[in-house]
């Protein structure tokens, strides 16, 4: 029980640290949010007084300490603040985007994990050297593919040349939003993430499997005449599951942030693009809010990984 408490305390500490960094780092970037605040105005023509009035309204002329205090007070009340760009709550902005990101990256993560683990197990345990080498070489090549390039190639092949799938957006501009429409718009961006993400899952699974395959309990199992299929998936993969489990949970952070490039290429309205736009505009509250979400997700996934190890691998169980 003390272990759990200690872990909770540690997590809280990390979270507080992250909150502080999320506040400081955007403000250390060169550049000013005044253009985003002023909206349509020709920002160069504002007088110094008008400029200061705008900054005052968002408390940006206050000392950093006062701004930080206000930010923390807001956080305690569950208020992430309002975007400097359009004055809407940061939570509204995130709410509009998070569904699309979860759909896109969630699909990709699921497929990547299932396919990657299956292929790696099938090829690595095939005991045919050229199959294993071929699988590894291919996955290293996939891992090195730049998502931007893959996305562009998909657009040109399946959008322009074959005309099978839409090239941009999450739904059709008119009459969109049905299941089929959403699925059609999902195929290319998700495939890009899957193709470029498969390599990592494959490689981690492979190296974990190889470590297990050399162990005596697998050799014994084989001597005992356990069928090859059961040996592969029931014994070897089960014992090799821990690093894969960790990888998948770490990649949950990627759920929120990792799809910036793909979301930009496909004009997909997810969180990655929101963060990118917030950086361009120096929209501090929006940056704080989305980074906080990212931090919480990563910390949460780590905690989850820690807590679920014992369920997956009895060797990590601590007797209390």
């Amino acid at each position, binding site marked *: 029980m003390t272990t759990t408490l200690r872990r909770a305390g540690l997590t809280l500490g990390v979270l507080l640290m992250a909150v502080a960094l999320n506040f400081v780092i955007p403000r250390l970037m060169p550049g000013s949010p005044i253009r985003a605040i002023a909206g349509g105005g020709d920002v160069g023509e*504002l007088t110094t007084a008008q400029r200061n009035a705008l900054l005052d309204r968002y408390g940006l002329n206050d000392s950093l300490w006062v701004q930080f205090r206000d930010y923390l007070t807001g956080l305690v009340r569950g208020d992430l603040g309002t975007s400097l760009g359009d*004055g809407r709550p940061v939570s509204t902005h995130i709410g509009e985007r998070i569904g699309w990101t979860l759909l896109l990256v969630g699909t990709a993560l699921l497929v990547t994990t299932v396919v990657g683990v299956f292929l790696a197990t099938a090829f690595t345990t095939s005991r045919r050297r050229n199959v294993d080498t071929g699988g590894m070489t291919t996955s290293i090549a996939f891992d090195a593919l730049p998502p931007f390039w893959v996305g562009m190639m998909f657009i040109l092949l399946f959008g322009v040349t074959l005309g099978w799938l839409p090239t*941009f957006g999450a739904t059709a501009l008119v009459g969109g939003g049905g299941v089929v429409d959403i699925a059609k718009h999902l195929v290319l961006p998700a495939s890009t993430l899957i193709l470029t993400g498969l390599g990592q899952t494959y490689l981690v699974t492979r190296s974990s499997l190889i470590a297990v395959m050399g162990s005596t309990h697998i050799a014994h199992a084989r001597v005992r005449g356990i069928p090859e299929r059961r040996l592969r998936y029931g014994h070897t993969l089960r014992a090799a599951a821990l690093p894969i489990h960790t990888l998948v949970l770490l990649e949950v952070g990627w759920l929120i942030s990792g799809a910036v490039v793909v979301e930009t290429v496909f004009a997909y309205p997810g969180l990655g693009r929101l963060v990118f736009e917030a950086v361009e505009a120096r929209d501090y509250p929006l940056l704080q809010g989305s980074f906080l979400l990212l931090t919480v997700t990563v910390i949460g996934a780590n905690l989850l990984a820690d807590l679920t190890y014992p369920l997956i691998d009895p060797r990590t169980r601590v007797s209390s």
Partner: protein
Amino acid sequence: MFVAAALVATSCASDEATDAPADTGETDTEEPSTADGTAATPPASDPDASADAPETGSSIEQLTIAISGDESTLNPYTYVTGYPGLNLLGLVFDGLLALDADNEPQPALASDWTVSDDNLVWSLNLRDDVVWHDGEAFDADDVAFTFDYVAENTQSNWTPGVAGVASLEVTSPTSVDITLTEPSVDFAVRPLASMPILPEHVWSGVTDPENSGVDVSIGTGPYSIASYDTGQSYALDANTDYALGTPVADTVLLAVIPEPSTAFAALRTGEVDMVSSIVEPQLVAEFESDADLAVQTGPGFGSTQVNFNNERAPFDDPEVRRAIGLALDPQELIDSVLLGTGTSPNPGFLHPDGPLSQGVVTHEFDVDAANALLDELGAELGDDGVRILDGEPMSFDLLVYADNPTRIRSAEIVSEQLDAVGISTSITSLEPAALDAQVWPGFDVNEGRDYDIAMWGWSPSAQLDASRYAALFHSDPAIGTLNVTGLVDPDMDALLDEMLAAQTPEERDELIGSIEERVAEVRPFVVLFYQDGAYAYRASTFDGWVFQNGQGPLGKLSLVSN
């Protein structure tokens, strides 16, 4: 139904609307179109027809345009970019006047106007047949309200333009007299020809305009906002009551596609009909070879230039800036970076085809003269081929936007050209906001500047009105709001003051000529070129794009037929 068909024939009589749908093509009767586009009033005998007429009044059902970023709620206080944001704003709102394809002010909400002999009183007659998108009638009170609102809510593009208004008097529901504190030759261009007129009955309740929602983006323009999906798309519906012409499409969809390559792919698939981003010169042929697509080109007023920090040695010496000007060969840049699709620079900044330039100066490229001038200044060549001036090597950072390939390629050639005269530059590409923070911190010239040399450029609006031209060079920060080079030149200030106070266009033009000469002499920056606009569109959907000189085809001139 007959009336509806006849109305289609009326709208087809114009040049822009040649692609009438096949089902209306049967009506070959050439109905004379009424002079001012008020044809949308059907004969009173058939009330049902007036309800049907709008749907068939346009020749295209749907036109989809790709834009590269969200433009927020598309009203005068929220739109984001000068292009295409301002152009799109013009689809929703009207000004009192409007610029034509040659950037000359023409009647819009004001049907005609006169200026008093002392150039102080502008009397405008307003149209009486205009209604807001919500059905309320437009009148002179809305005009008075807008001038007040823009003066009070200062973060608007038009606030400086209305600053010179002493009073605005509503003389009747359809006429106003605007009295200026001083004569302003540019008053017709800014604010009159660009300031969107706001509906008093809606905007009198708007207290936080820069955060205002799409519900107050109600104008008199040819299209009204039917829906807005943040960061993704807009649907604009044709304003069937539009008095100043006929919207060419029933619906204009704006799709936000941040990556230009994707937008151009979507153009090729037919998902979009026009891309607002410029087509890079090397790709123009590819689009022109596609039978369904076309590329419209025309002069672009946006400048590409080399800015010096005029406050920092050695660039505080005009002779050094002049020497660099002589060392730079814009033609090489135009040929190799733009493949010829650009206009040679006017060292006085103004685009030769723009409304203000007097064409009195030309760029001089002469490496020998540049070397001679640098020798004369005592800048001796060091062992490494870099000149040393006043004990300091002439070695500088050249800043450039990391997201702009044309600028980066230009910077590379500029760097080579400067090498040839013994000036060494190292190109530093920065994320745009980071570069802005060095060249134009806080977008406020009062905050100074921190750079040596930077690749820079001004958008087309700087070419259109003389107050913006003056803002580039005046040493008083209140006037020289765009003087990001930090030029201080009393002779220049005097000329600018005189020009801004000019009583007549002739007098002003003459002074602009003198200013161009002075700019070429003191060289606060070196203009390299003005890149031509090249815009790709799906000609099979809509071929009526009208290129507004210096600005491009996206806007009211294209999407309304008269």
